[in-house]
């Protein structure tokens, strides 16, 4: 079942007196439960595409339909609701809230939803269990390693069981071992919860895990291929 559809999408940014075209006439379709990577060098447009899918930005031309909602036509409130209910984000720099504990960081995503405290606690503990951080619930982000921080970010993205998780260079700041753990965790969640994962990456380590690789260059999709690597077959 199609969960993301991009049709004839172009994104332009104003630069000085002119414009920079980050995405040019992109067509794309991603089905539910996919584990897909947007790959390409810096400036190829992968983060821009990820932001539009995440309704953090809107296309200049064309349409981006995410879970049957055209992101261009959503109000600020509607796109906030879409992100809150259906989308999870994982950032390269983790973006954990520094004054909160691990538990509170993960819980934050649920505070906006009308959930009882008991249900919230269970969901947070389950999410931390998925990423193996139940022993760090009282730690502040400053006390965590890079790998641990990214696992907290994954737990935060996953705690509300979103339909889509968007990860922008999730392993860029991690060493091989931590990257491996993070991707294993994501693959596991993708398998168990049927969550769609979309990565923006140029990290070779990530590519080994992808089941589908969409290559971008100069704002255009230049290749869209299914992967059959050993890692991606594990789950």
């Amino acid at each position, binding site marked *: 079942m199609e969960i993301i559809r991009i049709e004839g999408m172009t994104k332009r940014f104003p630069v000085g007196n002119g414009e920079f075209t980050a995405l040019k006439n992109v067509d794309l379709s991603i089905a539910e439960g996919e584990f897909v990577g947007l790959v390409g060098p810096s400036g190829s447009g992968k983060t821009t595409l990820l*932001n539009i899918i*995440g309704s*953090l*930005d809107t296309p200049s031309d064309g349409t981006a339909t995410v879970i049957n909602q055209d992101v261009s036509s959503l109000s*600020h*409130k509607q796109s*906030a*609701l*879409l*992100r*809150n*209910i259906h*989308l999870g*984000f994982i*950032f390269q*720099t983790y*973006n954990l*809230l*520094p*004054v*909160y504990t691990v538990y*509170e960081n993960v819980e*934050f*995503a649920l*505070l*906006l939803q009308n959930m009882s405290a008991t249900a919230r606690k269970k969901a947070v503990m389950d999410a931390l269990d998925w990423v193996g951080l139940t022993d760090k619930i009282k730690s502040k982000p400053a006390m965590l390693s890079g790998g641990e921080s990214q696992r907290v970010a994954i737990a*935060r993205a996953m705690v509300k069981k979103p339909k889509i998780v968007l990860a922008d260079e999730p392993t860029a700041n991690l060493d091989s071992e931590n990257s491996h753990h993070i991707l294993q965790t994501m693959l596991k969640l993708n398998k168990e919860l049927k969550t769609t994962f979309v990565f923006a990456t140029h990290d070779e380590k990530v590519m080994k895990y992808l089941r589908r690789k969409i290559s971008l260059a100069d704002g255009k999709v230049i290749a869209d291929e299914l992967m059959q690597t050993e890692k991606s077959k594990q789950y």
Partner: protein
Amino acid sequence: MLAIKLAFKNLMGAGLRTWLNVIVLSLAFVLIIFYNGLMDGWNRQARNDTQDWEIGNGQFWHPDYDKFDPYTIEESNEVISDEIQTLIEEDKVTPLLIRQITIYPQGRLMSARLKGVDPNQEIIKLPSADIRNSQNKYAAIIGEGMANATKLKVGDQVLMRWRDKNGTFDAHEIEIVSIFNCNVPQVENGTIYMDIEVVQEMANLHNQATMLVTSRDYENTKLEGWEFKDLNFLLAEFDKIIESKKGGGMVLQSILLLLALLAVFDTQVLSIFRRQKEIGTYMALGLTRTRIVGIFTVEGAAHSILAAIVGAIYGIPLFIYLSKVGIYYGNIAKASGLTIAETLYPYYSVGLIITSIIIVVVSATIVSYLPARKISKMSPTQALKGKIQ
């Protein structure tokens, strides 16, 4: 609720920066309450003293009497009727007969007011019984202010010249039998008090008075042939002084509050600039921009709540101490010419505290909201990159 929880978490997380703002804001709090408490204490004390010493619960004036026009005094006398006599006997009112006189202390000429007062009255605090206890028919009492101005002491005799109702001059030595201390300058300065019957005889105004001072429990405001002057009228000048003093104080308080608010404003601007990634993260997590503006506004406003708590920690003991011990003004009080006690006891009312809290909290909320509005224009992607200038 979420905004409040987040705001306090972020404030605590900001550490020293928060506490510096809070301390400055709490100083503004304490100063505003202290100064206004001092003014209110002064106001209460001065009103009380003026009522005790001079005006009771109001005065009945002869319709022609104008305290600012000495020429009206000669004609502003009314016969004390039987009805008034009954009120005097019941201690409901006490008559005063006022005359313009000249005295010659140490050979100097000095204009003064002579007030004839009932030696048996107990309505005003004036020690009029001292006149009654003297054997001298021309016994007089004066306040410390008058004594200092004339260099007169108890037992001194001084020549007094007056005119009777027909304009005929007469003169006699009077004896100072007592000098009283009072906080109300207009009771003391330029005034000599003698037995009203003696003054009536001197002025040939038998059984007449210029005004009637009512007792604290007397509430009737109508007496045939007299004009009632209520407390608002009689204390109007003093109210204006307090108003102007408060106005002057307000400038100082506003400057301090402004400095404190500037610190909060500055912190907010810096906070929003430095926490763009956090703002972007909030957006990515699904918070609406309005809600994020709310979080930052509450965070700024929470400085004032913490300031109220911190201010209360050191302010309450200070205020309790000052309201018990008072603030000693000494000779400055007398020299000022204002109705002011030597020791002022500040008065901190619930109304004053609530008003001060509202002023500080509302102003802190406004200055927190102004920079936070910028968030509503932020693009989530730019905020996440932390690139907004």
